[in-house]
């Protein structure tokens, strides 16, 4: 990919807006539980991954995150994402009935690289979840999303999720990021 910096300010702005527009719509689908539509926004070769983060001393920071192929919280292809979504449709998905109420907030959207076909975006996310009368979870961290143009429209080709927590302080992660 060519360096995003080579574009002029107006071009960068336009591209950033286009990415944000996609990301906000996509986040909205998750919060509105329109998960089939969400899945349709993913490319067939999507890689959806959340490695495990560990509290490490400065000198050991190179192994703060697990590497691809090792253990992870999410390491999904499209089929697996489909299973997660299907699960919620068939009933007996107790963790989500009554459903969680989620809010996917995306900020500090920065384009790292871009070309005619792909946009690589870095952003901060805050996934807020509240359940039943008073359960609350907040998952905060950084994401790297690869957006790809498929016949005119942007699609999500890769989502790498770098959570700031090490121990997951929630009873489950039954929602998509």
């Amino acid at each position, binding site marked *: 990919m060519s360096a995003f910096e080579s574009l002029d300010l107006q071009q960068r702005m336009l591209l950033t807006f286009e990415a944000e527009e996609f990301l906000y719509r996509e986040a909205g689908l998750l919060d509105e539980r329109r998960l089939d539509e969400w899945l349709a926004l993913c490319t067939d070769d999507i890689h959806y991954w959340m490695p495990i983060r560990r509290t490490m*001393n400065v*000198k050991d920071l190179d192994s703060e995150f*697990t590497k691809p192929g090792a253990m*992870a919280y999410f390491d999904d292809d499209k089929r697996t994402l489909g299973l997660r979504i299907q*699960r919620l449709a*068939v*009933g*007996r998905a107790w963790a989500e009935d009554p459903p969680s109420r989620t809010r996917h907030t995306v900020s500090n959207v920065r384009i790292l690289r871009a070309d005619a076909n792909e946009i690589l975006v870095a952003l901060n996310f805050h996934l807020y979840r509240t359940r039943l009368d008073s359960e609350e979870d907040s998952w905060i961290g950084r994401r790297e999303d690869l957006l790809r143009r498929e016949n005119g429209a942007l699609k999500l080709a890769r989502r790498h999720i770098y959570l700031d927590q090490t121990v*997951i302080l*929630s009873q489950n992660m039954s929602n998509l990021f």
Partner: protein
Amino acid sequence: MAATMIATDRIPWYDADSGVLDRRIFSDPEIYRQELQRIFARAWNFVCHESQLPQSGSFFMNYIGEDQVIAVRDRTGAINVLLNSCSHRGNSVCRAEQGRTNSFLCSYHGWNYDLDGRLVAIPGQEAFYRNDVDKAKWGLGKAAQVASYRGFVFATLDPTAPPLEDYLGWVGRLGIDMIASNGDLEVVDGVQKNRLKCNWKLAVDNLYDWYHVKISHGSALRIGYAPEEAMAPLSQMVILGEYGHGIGGPGVTQAELDEYATRSKSGVGEPKWYDMMAARRLDPRVQQMLGPVGARSFGHPNIFPNLWITQFNQICLRVPRGPYETELWWFTLMPKDLPEDQRRFAIYMANHTFGPAGLLEQDDGENWSHSTRGAKGAVTQRLPLNYAMGRGHDRVQADPSGQSRIETVVNEHGQRWTYRSWQEWMQADSWQELMAHHSPAPSGVV
């Protein structure tokens, strides 16, 4: 408070004659406080697998009850289990989950401890302490005993505890043998950790629970993530051992094992629900290792109090974090020489079955946290819990090999044994008393 009274008297929490349990053991803070003293501070607790400590200085942080401990390999290659608290003011001497170090330098005043916990350097020992400090006396607190069985490292804080192998007994050892029989194991990088709002015992008793699968994990079954016959088969085997250890879950007959052996050779015949499991028992050395009965069991071992060993490649530690919170720590262990494709598949299954985002496990926490809540209500608390499934209808069968077991259908024998043993641990005032008064493994009708 009533709490105190409850905890210190001798009322039986668990009534073996009726299989009925008092809910308060899941919610009373005083009972929890006693558990830390009478169970975790006494038992042999799993701390890590040897492969997690490849070199001298490699360490892994864990807990015994709520006491934080560091498992670390020293220069002699020995593994030490150290209490993570400086003898000077009590500061932590290590804050990382894992890593490698040359020593444990306290960040407060710089007392420095060697990898075996010995206090080796005190700033100003001569100038300020005038050499009037006996370093030998002020090392880090250490586990009273550390031992390893087939690469699984355990520690106890109680010097009067029996040796690990005696503690495990044949049932605990068999439980570990089952996963060890996969090959020469090493931990795959990445321990999954998450926190549930449930009492630790509810997480433990669930590992014997082949009854909840169809309902709790109904969605996973309905989407075909896992085949129902394999996930909740009718033929079950339960093996119970002293001090609360047990193995419960699917079991097959020798005939079925043989059938699979023939079929897998000939390639002729219908697949069966037990194929994936039976495949792991083809090797005669494995059958040798597990014994005639053990080789037919595909159940879930629990090393009392809180180490669940799964049927395949994972173990899960249920770490207590207060009366109402528990952390689940998932360790994944693979044979070093596993072919890449099998390894990839096994890791895929590990990543997607259990853990906070696991297609199965997602739904468990919700039930356990609400069961804990259901043990709190001032009036609800008075209602007994029913652990009576199958009680009095099964019989322990002896075996020439000595491998006694119960062969039956889905049941709650494992859970009952857990609480019966738990009660003996709670009532004993010392290891001596526990050794003298604990129940032998059951025999006859159960």
